[in-house]
């Protein structure tokens, strides 16, 4: 039963062929069997069963229930859940229990979803491997010697291994799409501003976006619709219209213009990724799509822009962790300043410290114009490049990642993969538009490979229709 998609389980729940309690227990059994994946930081077992029984009772009485009624979901551990620990996989927040729900969690609960657990992640969402987690790496469900990707590694492994019917993650430079690609799941980065980040523990506020991870495209559109919407508690929240994301099952690629950044194809080192991307583009071409290879020269600068602005904002956002108001406090200090030093030194992991340093370097006097302002200018160029590209095409397609998942114990070859894995995903965060990663095939070692479909800002409807059509053509 845990292998059903979200829409399938909701259908069975509605028809009362399955109870929510059964659905929850089926997932809990599967969580127990998959403990070795280390996908979850916290399992909300007792509360989930209690909540499932309440929803079953309401349904039995014929009361109105929400669109997700009784479906167990997993939430990334940087999204605040009232009364449930939210640790960011950091020693700094091991004992942190939020006193409020993030807006996205409120929205899921308003539809009667069940929060089954909190997903492991790279510490403070910094990383693409889930190797920086304080609670240890997440293992790839397809091959346990390989990484899940990150930073939403636990969320993606959970969906891929059927620990829940869907999950939420966050994506700042590719942190939903990259692990979704590594784990063979569907992952969405919605348009910046369309999903509230209130209650998301901030990494880099100019790029952070919450999105769903699901087993198929239809579920992804359904979840995106539920979590989207204006929220006055997120000051970059979009106030305009939010179109219906109901999938058009008749969508055809005929005469659709698909842009392919040719610099990206040149960058591809991995033969499997190259072959599968080519094959899928040919498939779309057979369906009538017009494939347009275009030069997008500034996209390769997304990673340096991301390092400067992302680290600078992370350094500022993580300044709040001082051992006073909440989070870890060192027990051994001489005075107030020493308490700050010791708490931060002992509470943060190595990757987090490095990014704070890089960020404060870019923000410091003498470097601000050369690094921070320069990066903001290049951000403008990247956005302009996307705007110009979307005048010539409807959607842009790239591989999601340049390689499939790499080994947890990095060898020489894999060490390089670790640093380039956001190269195709980060440009979308810099420009602020929407993208989805859809499973597109497997490598010679049997590891999943994903295809990224990039849409203009607010182009989610077209993106989901195309992704759904692609998913169906592949089957």
């Amino acid at each position, binding site marked *: 039963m845990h292998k059903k998609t979200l829409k399938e389980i909701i259908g069975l729940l509605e028809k009362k062929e399955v109870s929510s309690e059964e659905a929850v227990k089926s997932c809990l059994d599967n969580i127990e069997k998959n403990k070795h994946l280390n996908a979850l930081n916290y399992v909300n077992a007792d509360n989930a069963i209690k909540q499932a029984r309440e929803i079953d009772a309401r349904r039995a009485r014929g009361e109105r229930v929400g669109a997700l009624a009784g479906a167990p979901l997993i939430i990334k551990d940087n999204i605040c859940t009232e009364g449930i620990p939210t640790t960011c996989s950091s020693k700094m927040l091991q004992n942190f229990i939020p006193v409020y729900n993030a807006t996205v969690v409120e929205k899921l609960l308003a539809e009667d979803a069940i929060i089954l657990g909190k997903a492991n992640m790279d510490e403070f969402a910094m990383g693409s491997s889930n190797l920086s987690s304080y609670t240890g790496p997440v293992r790839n469900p397809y091959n346990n010697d390989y990484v899940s990707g990150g930073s939403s590694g636990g969320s993606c492994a959970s969906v891929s291994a059927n620990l829940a019917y869907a999950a939420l993650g966050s994506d700042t430079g590719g942190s939903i799409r990259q692990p979704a690609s590594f784990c063979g799941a569907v992952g969405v980065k919605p348009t910046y501003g369309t999903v509230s980040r209130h209650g998301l523990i901030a990494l880099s506020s100019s790029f952070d976006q919450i999105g769903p991870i699901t087993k198929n495209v239809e579920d992804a559109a359904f979840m995106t619709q539920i979590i989207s919407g204006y929220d006055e508690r997120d000051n*970059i929240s979009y106030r305009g219209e939010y179109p219906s994301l109901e999938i058009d099952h008749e969508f055809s690629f005929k005469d659709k213009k698909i842009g392919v950044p040719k610099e990206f194809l040149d960058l591809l080192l991995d033969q499997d990724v190259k072959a599968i991307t080519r094959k899928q583009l040919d498939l779309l071409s057979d369906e009538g799509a017009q494939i347009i290879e275009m030069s997008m020269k500034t996209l390769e*600068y997304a990673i*340096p822009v991301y390092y400067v602005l992302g680290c600078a904002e992370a350094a500022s956002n993580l300044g709040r962790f001082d051992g006073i108001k909440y*989070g870890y406090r060192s027990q051994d200090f001489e005075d107030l300043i020493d308490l700050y030093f010791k708490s931060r030194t002992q509470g943060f992991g190595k990757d987090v410290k490095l990014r704070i340093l890089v960020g404060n*370097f870019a923000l410091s006097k003498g470097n601000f114009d050369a690094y921070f302002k320069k990066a903001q200018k290049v951000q403008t160029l990247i956005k302009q490049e996307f705007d110009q590209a979307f005048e010539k095409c409807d959607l842009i397609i790239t591989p999601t990642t340049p390689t499939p998942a790499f080994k947890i114990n990095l060898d020489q070859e894999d060490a390089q993969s670790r640093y380039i894995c956001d190269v195709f995903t980060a440009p979308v965060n810099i420009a602020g538009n929407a993208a989805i990663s859809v499973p597109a095939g497997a490598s010679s070692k049997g590891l999943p490979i994903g295809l990224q479909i990039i849409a203009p800002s607010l182009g989610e409807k077209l993106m989901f229709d195309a992704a759904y059509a692609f998913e169906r053509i592949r089957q």
Partner: protein
Amino acid sequence: MITLDEIKKISKLSRIEFDDQELKEIQSEFRAILNTIDRLNELDTEGVEPTYRPPLDVEELREDIVKPSLDREKILQNAPEHEDGAFKAPTIVE
């Protein structure tokens, strides 16, 4: 090239301490990142406006209306130490 002294200075400003071994590792990773970042200089940005605003139209300021805040007692439960409804910090002035 970033020197150990520069890294020590930034880490002090960041309120983070490193031992000598860690500093060397940090320096080598820092250098690798700076090499990546320095590639930005390959692009001519003369006359380009920096991006300051989010891409979509958003209202920057909301009405200043007082609303209920979170419960003080609940918030303090997450504090490492608290007393009389306040966060407790080490003594600063005797």
